[in-house]
């Protein structure tokens, strides 16, 4: 009987750990989830939280970095997104998720230099403890999460790529993020709420 009890206990533990492991493995937000706020250091030395933006209608949160060629290829388009949508209530918030010991080219100094060279018009935050990107479920750079401010919090409305051509901004057919934000501004449904693109694995 004692043996049976311990088998039962072990099975329960195993089942439980399988369940939690699976949950952890899937990880991150799905469209419709509420996104966490954060308090991360910006390149100007201040900390930034979503709650600082009293007048925003939402956010274009982009996990990006200096060292990934895909992220670099999209820099000008990220700046353009901020210029177009910050004034409409959807500012870009860029977050650098890499471990800067592994990628020194992504450290705060390098981030400051890159932001200055490119003329970033948006906050470029360091996820220093690497605690924010796993909650969002970002796996790579660049990786976009469009959030809409609701009474319950910042709701995830779109997850994925910026557009459908990393190589050539002029050859883009689908501006996924613009379509998503335009739909939110117009009160319409977003046609594609989830897209995929190749990116650089976030370095842990």
């Amino acid at each position, binding site marked *: 009987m004692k043996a049976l009890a311990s088998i039962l206990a072990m099975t329960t533990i195993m089942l439980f750990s399988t369940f939690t492991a699976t949950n952890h493995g899937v990880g991150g937000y799905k469209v419709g989830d509420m996104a966490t706020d954060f308090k991360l250091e910006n390149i100007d030395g201040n900390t930034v939280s979503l709650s600082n933006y009293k007048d925003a209608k939402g956010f274009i949160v982009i996990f990006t970095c200096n060292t990934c060629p895909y992220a670099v290829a999209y820099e000008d388009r990220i700046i353009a997104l901020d210029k177009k949508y910050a004034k409409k209530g959807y500012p870009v918030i860029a977050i650098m998720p890499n471990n800067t010991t592994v*990628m020194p080219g992504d450290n705060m100094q390098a981030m400051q230099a890159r932001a200055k060279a490119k003329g970033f018009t948006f906050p470029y935050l360091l996820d220093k403890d690497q605690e924010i990107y796993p909650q969002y479920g970002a796996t790579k750079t660049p990786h976009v999460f469009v959030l809409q401010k609701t009474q319950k919090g910042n709701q995830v409305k779109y997850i994925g790529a910026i557009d459908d051509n990393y190589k050539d901004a002029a050859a883009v057919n689908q501006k996924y993020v613009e379509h998503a934000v335009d739909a939110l501004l117009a009160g319409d449904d977003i046609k594609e709420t989830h897209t995929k693109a190749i990116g*650089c694995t976030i370095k842990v």
Partner: protein
Amino acid sequence: MKHLLFLLAVTLMVSCKEDKTAKQEADLVANDAAVTLEVYNFNELEPLLSTQDNKTYVVNFWATWCKPCVKELPYFEKLKSNYQDKNVELLLVSLDFPNKYESKLKPFIKAHNLKSKVVALDDPDMNAWIPKVSEDWSGAIPATLIFNKDRRQFFEKTFTYQALETEVKSFLN
């Protein structure tokens, strides 16, 4: 007149320099001519991701700029050499940007003396083809697909040699 001579001298110097650079580049290209690189769009690559024969295929998506990819490449090369008589085929699919094929990718293949077949995938509409490789793929690299006619499994992760060998062995039994 003095000015004209000076200008002439400068022009000559500049053109000599340009000649030299052009020649160096030509040499470089000649050296790399040995490296042939097949460039595919996804439709052309897709048949290679579903070959139905008696072999087990290991397809690794990588790029020269991707640190963790470069780190694990030797394990794929080792797997190729250890399992070539066991019906295991390797395919390294490079996602390097097309403008880096000559300057980065081909020199890399040559310098590392890669024995596995390397092809380049040039297809910007990634949202269209990533789910066709695997619905589970977020798009981060390195990523690896192992398949044979009975089974296929996708991994969005880095491998150690041991972990890679274990997975491949499970396809051979």
